[in-house]
């Protein structure tokens, strides 16, 4: 363990693992994960044998249909992310515990005030043979942040003052930030923050990235064919060819996998997984900790503006029953906090259990006996409507009448942001810091629980100004304790992300939550 901060930050990969292992004793949940994941990338959970070169892998994803694009900054679906990852690189990406690891960046180093970061690029080339330079990085980020455009990663890049940021030399960028940001590497790993060559514009015909695969052909809504990039900086992929196929119907994805028409099927349902897990015809891969499952209570309006009512709801939930009923048991139960298994997760807090007696008492104290609440839900995510029904029955036992209201799945997230009082909620993997900043600060853009507290905001700023990891972990723990006691998210579980592969496929990572570096990492996959 190096204590010199400058040295640690020059080798972020090293330092992160060292740090997590050491502070695991200080009750940091990531210990177990980092402990078993020795190799930095692509560690497979099974004895897959020796990697073999060659072959073609076809992967079926649910996708955007005829309107999809290869513009890496435009994507918002898993299919987009998997394709972008094959063609492009980010400066950093998340490991299984959601810690940013360097990718196109080889090192980063902040100034003392944590508001200026020097990022060094590794030697890498784009598919056209040109090197990846600091100018390409600035061009990419400025394109994403263009006020005229609406790229998804724009909000993530908000801390950067891109006017003041500049290239120090060909392979060094100095990012000037609007405020101290201790977790700046998370920004570099943000969803959709891919690096494209300066001046790039035509993505669908001739996408030029630095990623492990090059484009062969793209027909929107049907298939994307890629071939190996032999010059890839992280080692050439094993596969000769990779083909992404769009199949929005889950049973179609399973059937094509069973029929040998694809070798990889993304996003299967827990029931499918259970049906085929033992049969041995295909392999089922469960990526843990991929989707937080919750009910969001709006803390700024009755009845949830009373924290006793919120606590009563925490106590109403029988998490095991929800997990088994809504997700066929595919996942683990939650403890009303986001990010179980991720770095900085407060796993020292006691697991909350159902306690209907105490829930009734709290409701009585709050003057909320015979409470009637409407629970908004929609078929927008697996298990939503099922969980809503189960929770309604659980609440009835505590004397609370819940009316379940089913909404349109195309506009669900917008509908529940400001209206209603209680709704089904889920979240994909992201660092705990991002969850806090995107959803739980006064100025957060998607604050579905209306959790707006000046002192909580101040704690977040304090964490971002704290250079020392342990001290910062302590601040995050304080914030999480508060959320555990009186927050608006009733986090009842974490769903596995389920993938099916043919038995001939090796090297599929079994730990990486969806959307992290080793998820859909086709450059590390091979065919036996």
């Amino acid at each position: 363990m190096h204590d010199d901060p400058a040295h640690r930050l020059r080798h972020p990969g090293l330092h992160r693992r060292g740090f997590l292992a050491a502070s695991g004793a200080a009750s940091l949940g990531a210990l177990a994960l980092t402990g078993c994941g020795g190799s930095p990338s692509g560690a497979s959970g099974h004895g897959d044998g020796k990697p073999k070169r060659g072959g073609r892998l076809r992967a079926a994803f649910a996708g955007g249909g005829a309107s999809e694009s290869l513009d890496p900054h435009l994507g918002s679906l898993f299919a987009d992310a998997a394709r972008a990852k094959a063609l492009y690189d980010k400066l950093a990406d998340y490991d299984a515990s959601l810690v940013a690891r360097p990718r196109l960046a080889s090192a980063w180093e902040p100034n003392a005030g944590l508001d200026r970061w020097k990022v060094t690029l590794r030697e890498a080339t784009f598919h056209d043979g040109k090197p990846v330079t600091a100018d390409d990085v600035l061009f990419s980020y400025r394109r994403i942040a263009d006020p005229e455009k609406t790229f998804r990663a724009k909000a993530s890049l908000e801390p950067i003052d891109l006017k003041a940021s500049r290239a120090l030399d060909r392979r060094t960028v100095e990012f000037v930030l609007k405020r101290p940001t201790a977790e700046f590497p998370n920004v570099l790993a943000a969803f959709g923050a891919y690096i494209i060559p300066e001046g790039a514009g035509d993505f669908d015909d001739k996408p030029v990235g630095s990623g492990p695969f090059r484009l062969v052909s793209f027909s929107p809504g049907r298939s994307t064919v890629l071939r190996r990039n032999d010059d890839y900086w992280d080692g050439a992929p094993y596969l000769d060819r990779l083909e992404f196929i769009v199949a929005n119907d889950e049973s179609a994805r399973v059937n094509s996998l069973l029929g040998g028409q694809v070798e990889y099927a993304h996003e299967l349902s827990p029931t499918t997984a259970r049906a085929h897990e033992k049969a041995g015809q295909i392999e089922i891969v469960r990526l843990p900790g991929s989707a937080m499952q919750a009910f969001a209570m709006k803390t700024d309006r009755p009845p949830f503006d009373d924290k006793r009512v919120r606590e009563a709801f925490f106590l109403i939930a029988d998490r095991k029953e929800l997990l088994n009923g809504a997700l066929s048991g595919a996942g683990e139960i939650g403890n009303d906090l986001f990010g179980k298994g991720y770095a900085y997760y407060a796993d020292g807090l006691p697991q909350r259990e159902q306690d209907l007696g105490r829930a009734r008492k709290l409701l009585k104290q709050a003057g909320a006996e015979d409470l009637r609440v409407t629970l908004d839900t929609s078929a927008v995510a697996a298990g939503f409507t099922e969980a809503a029904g189960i929770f309604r029955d659980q609440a009835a036992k505590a004397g609370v009448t819940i009316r379940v209201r089913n909404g349109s799945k195309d506009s669900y997230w917008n509908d529940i942001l400001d209206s209603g009082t209680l709704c089904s909620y889920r979240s994909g993997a992201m660092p705990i810091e991002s969850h806090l900043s995107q959803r739980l600060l006064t100025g957060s853009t998607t604050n579905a629980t209306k959790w707006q507290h000046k002192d909580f905001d101040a704690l977040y700023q304090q964490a971002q100004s704290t250079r020392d990891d342990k001290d910062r972990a302590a601040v995050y723990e304080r914030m999480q304790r508060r959320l555990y006691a009186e927050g608006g998210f009733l986090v009842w579980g974490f769903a596995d992300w389920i993938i099916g592969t043919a038995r001939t496929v090796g090297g599929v990572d079994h730990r990486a939550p969806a959307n992290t570096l080793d998820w859909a990492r086709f450059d590390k996959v091979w065919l036996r």
Partner: protein
Amino acid sequence: MTGLRSWLARRLLLGAAQTVAVVLLVFALTEALPGDAAVALAGDQPDPARIAAIREAMDLDRPAYERLLDWAAGLLHGDLGTSLVSGRPVGSYVSDGFGPTLLLAGLTLLLLVPLGVGLGVLAARHAGRRTDRAISSVALGVYAVPEFALGTLLVTAFALRLGWFPPTAVGYGTDLLAHPATLVLPVLVLLSRPVCSLTRLVRAGMIDALASPYVAQARRYGVSGVRVRYAHALPNAVAPAAQHLARTVDWLLCGVIVVEGLFVIPGLGTVLLNAVAERDMPVVQGLAVVFGLITVVLNTGADLVAHRFAPRAEVTA
């Protein structure tokens, strides 16, 4: 023949009006759905500022009637507009998806007519006997099974268990004719329900016709049974069936959406489903025009056929 010609003109005019009505209705209904393209695109990141920006970029901040008028003006020049989501022309959406859907629908119709009529005639010939009862009860039974259920059943049995056909059309692109095996199960699913209804209609029509006075008269004159059946009775039984057949085309569209999804065939049904989910109005409207026109043309054609086969029957526009 002037009567027929003016009837046809009236019929086509009405068809055009119907297409306009369909487009207006589809526009109004899609507008009435909660959320617009900006909201759908923002998905689980409904940052209000971002939604507002997307809305502006897509011109969605303009009133609905203005957008509709603009699009209609383009339509007069044969321009179906551009997709809100991808910025690609709607025409390319239609042309890309048209082939597979036409192939599915065409094959289905091609098989539907001989199968439906044949089974119907067969059942009518043996009315009340074992063959009739077998055909009728199977037809009723299959008719009661929705496409998605039948599709899953057929895939499980014939593709996954027996391995006779590929379970989906994945990997064959749009060149499905070159791989006829992939088409067997989708066409079977599409055929299943229309065949049943057509069989029952033809059977009922035949039984009615065979019991009619003119058939009895023909028989008294010693006209052979085959001639009576196929030259006298069948045309009268086919008239209602032809009109039903045209209606089946609207029906096929619903089936096509299910079948395309189940077998991963990238046709118009898939395009429509996605466009509605994305609130991509120009694409939805463009498809409404295409489907509206097809329906009008086919129904007019069916009325013509009915007119031809059974001129006595009142054919109203």
